[in-house]
């Protein structure tokens, strides 16, 4: 176990019971090459990430494309296989679960996807989409299932008469509600929200965000909320993890993170958001260059190639995630 995970765990233990505890998680994708499709390298999408979520909490996770945030979400709900590390759900390592055990565990963790079009099977009526989970987990009576589906349709703000309709009849916002109902129907404890509002229009976004926070109260849900939009994450999250190139850059309570970001990457990210308020004049930090490839990340600190503070130490030593203030961790030599 690394120092960082220990620190985070201690912090979390002191503040309530942990629902999810991720330790030193690594998820690599093989790169296949040549005629024989042999592995010629790894994409290190997630490379040693630790964090934990308390019961009832919303943990936000932000970062740009390629930072590994979606892979983390998918690894946690076991859609992608981890390469190393541990994912403890209520104290139990779920990465080793197989077969029936895994299937039972899936009831506890559900996921809401980004794309409201791709995530609903176009050839299935809404009732089957939402009710299928109930069926595979043992609710065999069709009538009982339909009643339950109708209940959840109403919970997410749709009419119960919609059970027999097909996804193409719904708007993007409505489809996202169907996706939420599907996740909710199994009464999970943890819901991974993978960019749930990024594909929606502004006015629909706020409807779905409100719904998500209502549901959290109503059903006592715990969220891992993944997004690239910092304002959305700040709005919904209690704590926020900032990711960069497969590593955690900074973790803090969301107020603290936004008021006083410690990691230069977080600072740049925050300053890059365009704010629709002409009276606010702010100093923008424009980062140079692109995010490096996760196949061959920079030595030492991964952010150093774009960082204006970078010194020689940043190339030599990888900064550990350390507590810079109480409840505020950053992985930077100068934080």
């Amino acid at each position: 176990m690394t120092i960082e995970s220990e620190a985070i765990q201690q912090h979390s233990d002191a503040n309530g019971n942990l629902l999810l505890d991720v330790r030193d998680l690594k998820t690599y994708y093989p790169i296949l090459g040549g005629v024989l499709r042999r592995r010629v390298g790894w994409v290190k999408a997630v490379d040693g990430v630790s964090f934990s979520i308390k019961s009832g909490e919303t943990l936000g996770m932000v970062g740009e494309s390629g930072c590994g945030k979606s892979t983390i979400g998918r690894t946690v709900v076991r859609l992608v296989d981890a390469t190393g590390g541990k994912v403890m759900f209520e104290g139990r390592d779920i990465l080793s679960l197989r077969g029936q055990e895994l299937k039972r565990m899936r009831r506890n963790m559900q996921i809401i996807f980004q794309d409201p079009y791709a995530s609903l099977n176009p050839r299935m009526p809404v009732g089957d989409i939402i009710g299928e989970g109930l069926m595979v987990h043992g609710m065999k009576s069709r009538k009982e299932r339909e009643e339950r589906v109708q209940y959840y349709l109403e919970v997410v703000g749709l009419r119960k008469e919609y059970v027999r309709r097909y996804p193409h009849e719904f708007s993007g916002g409505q489809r996202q509600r169907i996706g939420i109902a599907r996740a909710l129907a199994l009464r999970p404890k943890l819901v991974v929200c993978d960019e749930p509002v990024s594909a929606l229009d502004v006015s629909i976004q706020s409807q779905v965000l409100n719904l998500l926070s209502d549901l959290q109260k109503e059903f006592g849900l715990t969220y891992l909320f993944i997004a690239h939009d910092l304002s959305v994450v700040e709005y919904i999250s209690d704590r926020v993890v900032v990711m960069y190139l497969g590593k955690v850059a900074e973790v803090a309570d969301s107020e603290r993170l936004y008021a006083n970001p410690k990691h230069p990457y977080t600072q740049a990210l925050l300053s890059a958001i365009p704010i629709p308020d002409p009276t606010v004049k702010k100093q923008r930090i424009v980062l140079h260059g692109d995010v490096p490839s996760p196949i061959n990340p920079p030595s030492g600190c991964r952010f150093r190639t774009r960082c204006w503070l970078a010194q020689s130490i940043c190339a030599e030593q990888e900064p550990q995630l350390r507590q810079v203030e109480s409840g505020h961790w950053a992985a930077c030599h100068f934080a």
Partner: protein
Amino acid sequence: MQDPELMETAVLSDQEPTPIAPSDSSRMLMGAEDDQLGIRQLSQMQLFWIRFRRHKVALVGAVILAFFVVLAIIGPYISPETYEGSGWNPVALNWAPQWSWHYLMGTDANGHSILMYVLLGARTSLEVGVLSAFVATLIGILVGAVSGYFGGWVDAVWMRITDVFLTLPFLPLVILVSAYLGGGNAYIIVAIFGFLGWSSVARLIRSYYLTLREQEFVDAARAVGVSHSRIMFRHILPNALSPVIVSFTLAVAGFIVGEAAIDFLTVGIRPPSVSWGIALAGAQNNLILGNWWWAFFPGVCLLLVVLAINFLGDGLRDALDVRAKTSE
């Protein structure tokens, strides 16, 4: 449906919004969103029909095919004779077509009515074509689905097997197997065609599965705990149904031609079963005598059926093309 005042306070108030219970806010949203859904969009079936109707050639194909299907069903009841019952008929050898039901299309060298060949052959052709295509498609779906869904070494193994079947010289092999098994019976032909002809369907289905398995709705089903076989056949297959239908249709045409070909080479169906291919085979030595009708009527029927099915297949392909966007 909803109280407009409630909506107003909830929508754009300057003061701290009052917390709304989920059920309330849901009800509020529901009413408003209903305006959107009040209009039922065209169903998949309607869209299909609109697109298909535009394809005039396919419509003609469908009509011709329907005609032959009716023929195949009622053929045995309206046929002027049966093969067994007719035997050698010395009165009517090589008669040209004339105005009587029995001799409408003339007779062959044994005095059999060509109309009988046409009517009874329609059933044989369609039966062999449809059943063979059915068997081949079924095997193709199974192999393609397993291959495409699981990928990796499963895929590698099955695709090599598929390649072998794809590169086998189809007709010579069919002739060989048919000769070995003794041929004769339509069901033997169906079995041979089905077990040798699935490879192209398998490839097609596999390519669809490779893309569809990456779709998020598949991930969603896995996250819920749905089993592999259910995902393969309940989730993915309905989305790959359009290419299945099209390739099935075209396979029917292919197998009808194949059946006629092996009958013509006299290694397929044998009398007393009747087929267009048998009629054509019989005609080949006699054409020189000028009795064109023997080959003409069964030949035209074969041509019409195969063309009709191909036209229909084209129309289906256009109408079912899932990638062609609708107005939504």
